[in-house]
Each structure stands twice: as structure tokens, then as C-alpha cells.
């Protein structure tokens, strides 16, 4: 071989060149595709919000089908009548509230600052839905979702998603058989804003009891399930003051 690949100088030069080449490829790719990727992410948020309030294309009882991307913007502006941002006592309307990053707002709240909390008011078949974004931690990475409530604080639908939960176990929080269990549950325990617990061994696998603030957990996904419980609890807690103003029972 003509090149002596064992030399230190060669090693350093190789490393340098490789970093530059790989870095430029990735940077080029990232900037070239960022437009499309951001658009896809925007659509996804709209799809998720609509999904939680029951605007979706679900057919059988197994699949999760969103509104298609080509019509999601129209449907979003049709069904979501108001997007508000709650900052302390202040409530302002904001057409781009759905783009607010909950992760940052929760971090602010933890530091004791006033977060900007987005909330989406939707209307479908004459019924009003209050859709709240959620964000939390699973076993490996972030989990997030949306919860749709009515004015009696009954869950009308949820959507969960995750970044890196274990496939086949915790990753199943975005499956119908888990998400559908939440519908009909109340987040209230008497007058307390209790949230909903993902409970192991609650002896109610069919989830007939909608008053117990519990849904059946996923086997083998304890930590992800606890993350979901904590996420709902934290969100309900943050939005409590606003929810008090809309609650009618």
C-alpha cells in the first residue's frame, strides 16, 4: 500500500477530512430537507390535536388513522374554533398556539416562571372540546400527547406519542387499545383535579368503571405507564385554574 495508514499525521488528517465530509453531507441534507420536515411536523401536530377530539379516519377498532395531510390544514381551521394561550391570569388568542413547545413551557413552570400554556377549543357536532397538549418522560425518552375534555371534565379522547419507548412494550401507548380506554374517564375525583392513573392490577381490564380515575396498564411497560400517569397529572395541575372557569358540574 502506498499510504502508510499508521502514521499519526495521516490519522489526524483522515479524522479532520472525515469530519468535514460527514459534517457537510449532514448539514447539506438537514438544510435541504428542513422545509419539508418542518411542514410534516406541523401537519402532525394538527393531526394529533384533531385526533384527540375525535376528528380522524379510524375505521376498524385497531388502527390509528389521522386526517390526511392534504386536508389537515382546512379541517384544523374548520374544527378548531379558538386557540388560546394562558399566561398566568392573562388569556390571549394566538393562531399559532399549536406550535408552542410544551417541553420549554414545562421547564419554565418548573423554574417557577409563568409558562405560556396553549389550549385549543374545538367544536364538533355542536359539542365543545377543550384540547390540552401534554408532555412528559417515559422510560427512554420523551412522551407527549393531547387530551380532549368536555366542560364536565370527562375525557373525550386522547392521543399519545413517544420518541423511543421499547417497541412492543412501552411503544404501545400510541395503540388504540390503550388510548381508547381513557375516553369517558373523568379527571375529577370529587372536587379534586386528580388526573388519570395508569394502574396495574386494577381488576378492571375492560375499563367498565369510569369513575375510578384509572385505566388498565400495559404489561411490561410499567415505567412508560407511570410516565403517562405523571404527565396527565402534571398537565391537569398546570391547567387547573383555567379548567375551573369552564367546568360546569
Amino acid at each position, binding site marked *: *500500500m502506498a*499510504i502508510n*495508514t*499508521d502514521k499519526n499525521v*495521516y*490519522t489526524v488528517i*483522515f*479524522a479532520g477530512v*472525515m469530519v468535514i465530509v*460527514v459534517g457537510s*453531507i*449532514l448539514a447539506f*441534507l*438537514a438544510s435541504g*430537507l428542513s422545509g*419539508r*420536515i418542518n411542514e*410534516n411536523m406541523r*401537519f*402532525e401536530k394538527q393531526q394529533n390535536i384533531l385526533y384527540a377530539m375525535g376528528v380522524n379516519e379510524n375505521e376498524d377498532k*385497531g388502527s390509528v388513522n389521522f386526517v390526511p*395531510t392534504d386536508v389537515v390544514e382546512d379541517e384544523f381551521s374548520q374544527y378548531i374554533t379558538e386557540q388560546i394561550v394562558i399566561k398566568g391570569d392573562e388569556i390571549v388568542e394566538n393562531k399559532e398556539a399549536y406550535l408552542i413547545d410544551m417541553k420549554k413551557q414545562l421547564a419554565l413552570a418548573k423554574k417557577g416562571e409563568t409558562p405560556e400554556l396553549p389550549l385549543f377549543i374545538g367544536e364538533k357536532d355542536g359539542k365543545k372540546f377543550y384540547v390540552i397538549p401534554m408532555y412528559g418522560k417515559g422510560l*427512554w425518552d420523551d412522551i407527549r400527547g393531547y387530551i380532549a375534555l368536555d366542560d364536565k371534565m370527562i375525557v373525550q379522547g386522547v392521543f399519545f*406519542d*413517544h*420518541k*423511543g*419507548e*421499547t*417497541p*412492543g*412494550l412501552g*411503544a404501545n401507548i400510541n395503540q388504540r387499545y390503550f388510548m381508547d380506554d381513557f375516553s369517558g374517564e373523568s379527571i375529577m375525583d370529587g372536587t379534586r383535579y386528580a388526573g388519570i392513573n395508569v394502574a396495574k392490577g386494577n381488576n378492571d*381490564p*375492560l375499563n367498565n368503571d369510569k369513575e375510578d380515575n384509572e385505566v388498565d396498564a400495559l*404489561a*411490561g411497560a410499567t415505567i412508560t405507564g407511570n410516565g403517562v400517569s405523571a404527565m396527565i397529572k402534571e398537565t391537569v395541575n398546570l391547567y387547573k385554574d383555567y379548567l375551573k372557569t369552564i367546568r360546569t358540574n
Partner: protein
Amino acid sequence: MALLSKKDANLIKDPLADNNPITIQVLGICSALAITAELKASVVMAVSVMFVLGLGNVVISLMRNIIPSKIRIIVQLIVVATLVIIVDQVLKAFAYELSKTLAVFVGLIITNCIIMGRFEAFALGNGPWRSFLDGIGNSLGYGIILVIVGFFRELLGSGTLFGIPVLGDPIEKTGLYSTGYENNGFMIIPPAALIVVGIIIWVQRSGNPALVEEN
């Protein structure tokens, strides 16, 4: 004329049985334990690994004469990470739904020891075509075990295959469940995979005593 020479064909055949990455070389165990609770996840993982290993082996093989040996592991790591990120970004832009499904596998692919193992053991010393075949062969061998384990874990743990109920409804007590049969919750958790892999190793070695090491 055969499509592949005998030597080349062995690159595909060997890892399927006598030199299987999981049961013989004991590589890639972590993902085999973690994601085989469902058949679908097993298949997705197997296909992803095939793609990355096939392509990565070719890239490493092409670079094999210019990679400085002192930093070869880092170079291999960068190659596999770059490949995975490129695929991830392209999917995010053009097939967003698919990218969501695959996102959870990305970390598992990069850290899969089979990939680094084949780079190190084969691609660094062989030409691109043979490295490609080796990559495909090893990922098939890996995939087969994943699918077998996934099959038993999903069937016995959830009574479904690819998410479709095959044993009846456990809650309504129809089909097999009417006889008192119950799903085995243990099969869903990762230790069950260890046992299934152990049984596969046992069956394989008793069928071919040449695989058993002498003490």
C-alpha cells in the same frame, strides 16, 4: 451458471445456521431481547438492520485501505451513524408516517453489535461485493432468530400474530380461551426472550454436535 459462486453463497448461508450471529456468535442479543415482544417489531428491526448492514459493509469495505487502524472503530461508528441519520432525515421528509414507526429503532440499530462486529471482522478485510453478501447473510441470520422469538412471544404472550388475534378473544373467552387457556404474561417481558433464545440454541446444538465447544 449459478448466480453466486459456492464461496459467495456460503456468505449468505453460513450466518443462517452454523455461524448465526445471535445463537453462535452471541451478537445483537440486546435488541433480540428488547423488541421481540411482537412479530411486527421483529420484522421491522430485521429489515432495518439488513439495510444498514448491507450498505455499511459496502462503505467500510470501499474505505478499508484508507482507514487508519488506530481510529477505525470511531470511523465505523461514524459511518453507521451517518447512514442511519441520512435515512432517518430522508424518511422524515418524504415518508413521515414510516419514519415515525422506525424512529424507535434508530438507537437500537446504531448500537447493534452485529453491525460493528461485521464491519470489524469482515468488511475491513474483504471487497465490497463479498462484504455486501456478508451483510445480507448476517442480517438474515439475525432476522430469522428475531422472527422466531417474536413469533413465540407474541403467540404465547398476547395470543396474536402481527397484532391479529389467532387464539380467540381472551376477555370474551372464545376460541382456545374457552378451554381455560390463558395468555402467559411472562412471555411479554424481556427475560422470556432469553429463555426462547436459549431453547433455540439448545435445539440447534443438539441437532449439530459440531457446534458444541469442547471444555
